């Protein structure tokens, strides 16, 4: 039996790249979906609002793990056999889209009513109002909670290990299987996650303080 050594540690660090890649995929996909959902949530059309609310309630009421299983095993049986990375990316996108949509809805709604009214008076149409007046201000408010949510995304990518995608948590299990030193191995894994997440947490808090003062 091999002891836990620097090669194992290097293997874990290299696997962390896949954690980062999966996080980026989930964030990019979630951002697009979240934007659509946030706009749907504040839309003038009742149907769009209902659809967005329904989707968000559905996803926020289901564990991410079940979404992952549905994407991986479920779609596999229906006929679209997905690679673990694709299934994980899809499930994480659906998941983070719902949360980002809800976060950004709050940001859009926290732009003062007077801004809408003023831009109405200037004769801007709905699209122009969003692009030139509302969204730039909402984006400023949205930065701290969005960075904070990125921590959740990074941590949640660990669930991709369960459907066999070799990222940091799965690499930890593999190393543990050959060294059988679970405490040491998983503390190392946790430490690497911490190194990835802690700067984001600190940045989120810092931005919150900074942007709050400016308001």
């Amino acid at each position, binding site marked *: 039996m091999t002891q836990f050594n620097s090669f194992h540690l290097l293997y874990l660090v290299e696997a962390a790249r896949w954690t980062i890649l999966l996080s980026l995929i989930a964030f990019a996909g979630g951002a697009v979906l979240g934007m659509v959902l946030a706009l749907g949530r504040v839309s003038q059309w009742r149907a769009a609002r209902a659809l967005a609310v329904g989707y968000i309630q559905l996803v926020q009421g*289901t564990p991410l793990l079940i979404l992952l299983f*549905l994407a991986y095993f479920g779609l596999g049986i229906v006929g679209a056999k997905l690679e673990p990375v694709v299934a994980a990316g899809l499930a994480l996108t659906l998941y983070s889209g719902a949360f980002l949509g809800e976060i950004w809805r709050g940001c859009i709604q926290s732009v003062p009513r007077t801004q809408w009214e003023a831009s109405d008076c200037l004769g801007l149409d709905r699209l122009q109002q969003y692009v030139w007046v509302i969204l730039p201000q909402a984006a400023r408010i949205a930065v701290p909670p969005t960075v904070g949510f990125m*921590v959740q995304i990074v941590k949640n990518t660990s669930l991709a290990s369960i459907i066999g995608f070799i990222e940091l948590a799965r690499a930890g299990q593999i190393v543990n299987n050959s060294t059988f030193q679970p405490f040491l191995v998983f503390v190392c894994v946790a430490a690497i996650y911490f190194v990835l997440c802690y700067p984001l947490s600190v940045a989120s808090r810092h931005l919150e303080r900074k942007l709050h003062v400016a308001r």
Partner: protein
Amino acid sequence: MSYQFDFSFLADKWPAFVDGALLTIRLTVVSILLGFALGTACAVARVYGHPLLRRLVGAYVEVIRNTPLLVQIFIVYFGIATIGLKLDAETSAVIALVINVGAYTTEIMRAGIESIPRTQIEAADCLGLRRLQVILHIVLLPAMERVYPALSSQFVLLMLASSITSQISAEELTAIANVVQSDTYRSFEVYIVVAIVYLLLSLLYRVGFWLVGLALFVRRRRLGTAL
């Protein structure tokens, strides 16, 4: 696409799903109660404690909030076993969930405690209340009332996250789903059913927390105003 949906496994497997859901409820209710106690104690220590204690609690919160629950569960389940203490899956699951939700509760309750105006505490001091009385009646209950929405949605998230404990073979809802799907090969249907059960559970928890809130916050119930 010529896939035929087949939910016939429900006819003889439904008791297993009920058992799984009941275990999920048991695990999470115990974890929420213990985690709330831990988090509240930590929040009090974080605000009023010795500077060293404050830093210690701060470190606990940061470490837990910046690492995945899955890895925390592995550390508790596999890690503690290597020290020689053999815990069964359910106990390990509860320990990991308590440690996890305790950290989030600490942050939420800390925000609540810090939102209590100093003057309230000074007024209570003037009335001759003891330190413990001040913390319990003047600080904690109003603080909890303020952060109750955040607290209850964190607990619902914990209930959903408890699905991860299936990975250390705690026989809760998700673990049952995994067993049934490998028996029947009906994975899509099985996970759809389980997703619906989780949706119902989160609805149940929200209603439950609303009722608990009504029972707990007498002031709000009588006046109907925000604090």
